């Protein structure tokens, strides 16, 4: 069972971006990926007012292959309510937060409010992490520290220049896991598994922009044991997705 923990479906005419579920599913098929987490690239309730319903419908039509993560803008007063509605009523399995598109301080109360709503439902929160302000691993660590009952996943393992920080944060905070999407260093995946344990690392692609086959090849270049690879490629994601609401 291979589960991709990081894909996108959205439609943003202003940017000319049309990320279709069919493209994601086609890449999954080409790479032998069974299921995927899917999220928008806009932050509800901004831009696309019907984003929650669209992702929910996309997942419902996928025959169980796609699992929705609700991406919200924490500045909006209703953000935590949107998260609760998505998780309680629409079948979502997690939350996505992106500090670059929202300029939301990971340690600030608006983000923590969202985090607490997710944690109350045992839903993982995927933070974009990388090299910009508000998304570096040690900034996101403030959120992980403030809500230790939340499961925090650092997408992209810290990006280009913050992979070492991502590993250090995950070592310090047991509620932090890492997703491998787009991060270009196979050796860093091996290092993460060695230092944190394979149960703390999740395969993600960032499809359809980043090809699923290439991102999957990256995992296979990391020099993992078969058991570790099975955890990274699917078993960890299965555990997190199955735990929502339990």
């Amino acid at each position, binding site marked *: 069972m291979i589960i991709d923990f990081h894909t996108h479906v959205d439609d943003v005419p202003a940017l000319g971006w049309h990320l279709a579920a069919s493209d994601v599913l086609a890449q999954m098929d080409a790479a032998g990926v069974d299921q995927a987490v899917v999220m928008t690239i806009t932050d509800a309730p901004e831009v696309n007012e019907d984003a929650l319903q669209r992702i929910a419908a996309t997942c419902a039509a996928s025959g169980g292959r796609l699992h929705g993560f609700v991406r919200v803008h924490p500045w909006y007063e209703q953000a935590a309510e949107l998260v609760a509605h998505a998780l309680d009523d629409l079948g979502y399995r997690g939350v996505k937060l992106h500090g670059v598109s929202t300029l939301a301080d990971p340690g600030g109360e608006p983000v923590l409010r969202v985090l607490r709503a997710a944690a109350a439902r045992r839903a993982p929160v995927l933070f974009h992490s990388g090299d910009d302000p508000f998304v570096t691993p040690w900034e996101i660590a403030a959120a992980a520290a403030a809500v230790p009952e939340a499961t925090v996943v650092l997408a992209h393992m810290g990006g280009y220049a913050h992979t070492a920080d991502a590993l250090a944060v995950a070592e310090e905070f047991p509620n932090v896991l890492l997703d491998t999407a787009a991060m270009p260093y196979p050796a860093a995946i091996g290092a993460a598994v060695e230092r944190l344990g394979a149960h703390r690392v999740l395969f993600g692609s960032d499809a359809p922009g980043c090809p699923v086959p*290439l991102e999957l090849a990256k995992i296979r270049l990391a020099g993992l044991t078969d058991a570790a690879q099975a955890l990274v490629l699917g078993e960890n994601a299965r555990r997190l997705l199955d735990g929502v609401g339990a």
Partner: protein
Amino acid sequence: MTDLRDDDQDDEQVDGQAIDALALLGPNRYAPELTWPALRDTCRALGVGRVVVAPPLPPDRDLARAGRRLVSLAESTAADPVRAIPLARVDPWEPSAAADAAELLDSGARGVLVHPWEDNFRINDVGLLTPLLHELRAAGAPLVVEAGFPWVAEPAQLADLARRFPSVPVVATRGGHMNMSGLSGAAMLAALRQAANLHVLTSGVYRQDWLEQVVGAVGADRVAYASHAPVFDPRLEFLRPRALPEPATRQAVLAATATRLFER
């Protein structure tokens, strides 16, 4: 080493014709040394027949000597199945930088690498870089820039430099990317549109569709495959150009662009 070539892909440029447009070869102050036998074996496994090599910063900081070693390596591998194409590297702050570059270009170096982050200068510090750019213009050789670093090698700074020296090809590593949010990808595309002599290497770029967007916007002759070893893993980096959908684009990115830039 595992052969990562896709046997199902109809691609005449793999099997010795592909060029890796940058690897950092030799003693390295900041990382384990990448040796020629290791790089050569990787190239063989991937089907790469030529590799552009530049010095990382050596522990003794003697960039001129490191450059001369690579020129000698190129001479000794000229008839081999995997051939080295040497670049000089200079620190523009050194008073002898332009003269060192001229000497190495005259003796066989095919361009010059600079590293604004490690050597602490802005890539568009025209006063500092003009003597070096004059030597490159005289030699008809490209400037390769370690790009993707804030403050010193940002996309708009690269475009500023390239516009000021339009006859010198400027080649940016990492696709000019500084982040994985898509912001610097957009900024680098804008830079490429502003300066026709600005090029990018594919190493480590964020999003395959960005590469395809660049090819569509400015042409495949502005994009070249590079492993950028040992910073990046050639086994992964080689998959990026191989995933480009059009055979003609793959041919350009895997060989033609780099041939034009470095095989004058």
